[in-house]
């Protein structure tokens, strides 16, 4: 059961990575990237690396998103 969950997350990660690269709107790219980081944190936890999971959830989903949104607010929103 947990293996099925892992593979679902992996497929979701691949889709997220492709859509981050293809998104025209910078803000939606950042939001998809935050979802990618959150799923990656769950995957780290399932792979028995809780230390990395805490860091990924705080850095990837939290601070990186904030910094990228701040950078977008200083520049253009469209690509």
């Amino acid at each position, binding site marked *: 059961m947990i293996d099925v969950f892992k593979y679902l997350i992996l497929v979701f990660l691949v889709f997220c990575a492709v859509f981050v690269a293809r998104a025209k709107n910078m803000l939606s790219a950042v939001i998809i990237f935050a979802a990618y980081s959150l799923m990656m944190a769950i995957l780290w936890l399932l792979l028995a690396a809780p230390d990395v999971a805490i860091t990924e959830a705080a850095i990837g989903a939290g601070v990186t998103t904030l910094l990228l949104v701040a950078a977008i*607010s200083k520049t253009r929103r469209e690509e």
Partner: protein
Amino acid sequence: MEDTIVRYVSRIILPFVQLYGLYVVLHGHLSPGGGFSGGTIIGASMILYALSFNLAAGSKKLSHDVSSILESTGALIFAGMGLISLLLGANFLANRIAGFPLGTPGNIFSSGSIVIITFGVGIKVASTMITLFFSLIEEEHSHEHH
């Protein structure tokens, strides 16, 4: 950006976020996490405060001077613990060999100098996060005053 719901929710959850960050920092030698993860959580809580209230209130709580002092303090704690090991006649950052008491494993006051080093790393990372955010979000002309 004045939003009542965001303000109330962040006012409720901010103490818990900071307490959790402090817990992760202080239990760095016992449980997953450590200085970097916990420091990031504390820094993110300060960024949340600055976002949900306003930027002026955030920089009044933690000004540039205070955060740069904290940043240097964290680095100094790390290097100072290493130099104390040198002064006690062991290698840089040596722990048991330099004579730090290890205590019973599982207690919060155990593992010698690692607790203090982790605390320094936590301070350093938290203030670095806050400084990064403020220097990115602030206007250009405000840098001339600092």
